[in-house]
């Protein structure tokens, strides 16, 4: 039997991988994938808490999170396409039209 701590540490590590990827990657798609990793890290911790607490609530939250993540992906990619049509680049460093 693997204890709860292993799951929690795994999920925290995954979450930190996502945070690190978001902060260091400059390509918008890669940043977006990093956010997905963060969300799935949370899902992992929710499922394991749910299992060890013998309570269904955590599993239910995971379903909601997956749904919202799908909606988020749809909107994020739509915004990216709108941007790409106007300037054909997916690099965040080039997004500096407004400053001050």
């Amino acid at each position, binding site marked *: 039997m693997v204890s709860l701590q292993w799951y*929690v540490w795994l*999920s925290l590590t995954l*979450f930190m991988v*996502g945070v690190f990827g*978001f902060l260091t990657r400059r390509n*918008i798609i890669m*940043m*977006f994938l990093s*956010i997905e990793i*963060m*969300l799935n*890290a*949370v899902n992992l*911790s*929710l499922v394991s*808490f749910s299992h060890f*607490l013998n*309570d269904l*609530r*955590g599993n*239910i*939250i995971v379903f*909601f*999170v997956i749904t*919202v993540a799908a*909606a*988020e992906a749809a*909107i*994020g990619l*739509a*915004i*990216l396409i*709108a*941007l790409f*049509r*106007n*300037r054909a680049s997916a690099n*965040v460093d080039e*997004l500096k*039209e*407004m400053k*001050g």
Partner: protein
Amino acid sequence: MPDIGAQLWLLGPEIVLAVFAFGVILLDLVIKEKSVLAYLSIAAALFIMFTMFGRQGTAFGGMFLADGYGLFFNFIFLTSLCLSILVSLKYLPVERINFGEYYGLMLFATIGMMVMASAGDLIMVYLGLELMSLSVYVLAGFMRQSTRSNEAALKYFMLGAFASAFLLLGISFTYGLTGTTQISGVAQYIKDNGLAGNPVLAFTTILYVAAFGFKIAAVPFHMWAPDVYEGAPTPVTAFMSVGPKAAGFAVIGRVLTVALGPVSSEWTGLLIVLSILSMAVGNILAISQTNIKRMLAYSSIAHAGYALLGVIAGGPEGLASMMNYLLIYTFMNIGAFTVVTLLRTEGVKGEDLSDYEGLSKNHPLLSALMLLFMFSLTGIPPTAGFMGKFYLFVAAINAGYLWLTVIAVIMSAISAYFYLRVVMYMYMKEPGTVIPVQRSTAGRVALMFTGIAVLLIGVQPTGFIQMARSALAGFGI
């Protein structure tokens, strides 16, 4: 098992608004004249505003709380919805973005905020927050031909999604720690088990403060605000400087002061830092701005700092002053953005400070109202902004935060420089080219309404603060 009809009745406002939102999107297919959809949305909002009061109770196993607190915030959201739609009517054709989905998205964003304000469970907080955010991301990028608007939407989206992942991690760890996600249940568990000082609890507290700090644009989670406010269409900027911010505060009231209420000493310190930084950075960086939308963005960061004083003071007194301030902020900020929007006409951007030079010569009434809003944002009597700050500062002093109030007063004095500079440009400079103004009746209605509200609350301030205080009855603090 309580009767399902009674529970749905409590959710009435949200359900009606959702029906109208879908209706607007469907009608968009057959209706060519898009202003019909705008009036339909306003009618829905007004209908809900007049029928929603008096609902009391919990629905769906404590997921949804219909109480005075939520209804007061609903009032703020619906007011800002109506005013922003009025402002949009003539603006959208000028920007060539006159699509019906705009109003549908505004309605969906408002439903998200209403769900957030009435959430009884952390899942509802998350779902409401996402419904609101996803709609507002799209609205921010609504001018899809404009690279600035694209850039605003993408920045808002990226950082917003990043922040909501942190919120989710906080929810997950709260669940793991307490075994429940119900807000009152979490508070009960913390109290019963004496979890004060628990490191996991402290960790989740930091995650919550970061996630909600992002939504209210408090420093150091404010980086997105100036760019997004500048790039988004002006009525959307007006809407999101008020609605999502108020919704963020509503959730702070629910999650921090109720769920984490038993360990309030752990988050009060964090909020004090956020509040001081927001007031300082917002007011000082606003001084050097030449774009008025950007200046108002920094001003909105500073106002989040002021409103946080109410949460820090805590108790019914502090929360009531925070709610009252957010309502007043709705009127004065949307009023100021209405003036900015009215200056946008074919071929004239009207966003630069120099566009305000000598405005009073050509448009005396518009300038007088802008003067009123600027005075109110500074906090000069007899305007509403003064009374709002007055109640906030009284609450903070009564709670023993005299030094914090002194800082806030000094920061408001600094803010006078950039607010009154607009007034100086309008009244003491000679006009360069004549700046035309949109001939928008709806925009004028919004302007008159906000102007009267700012003046009326300024001379007769007790009404709303009493309303906020009585709304907090049975809130559980």
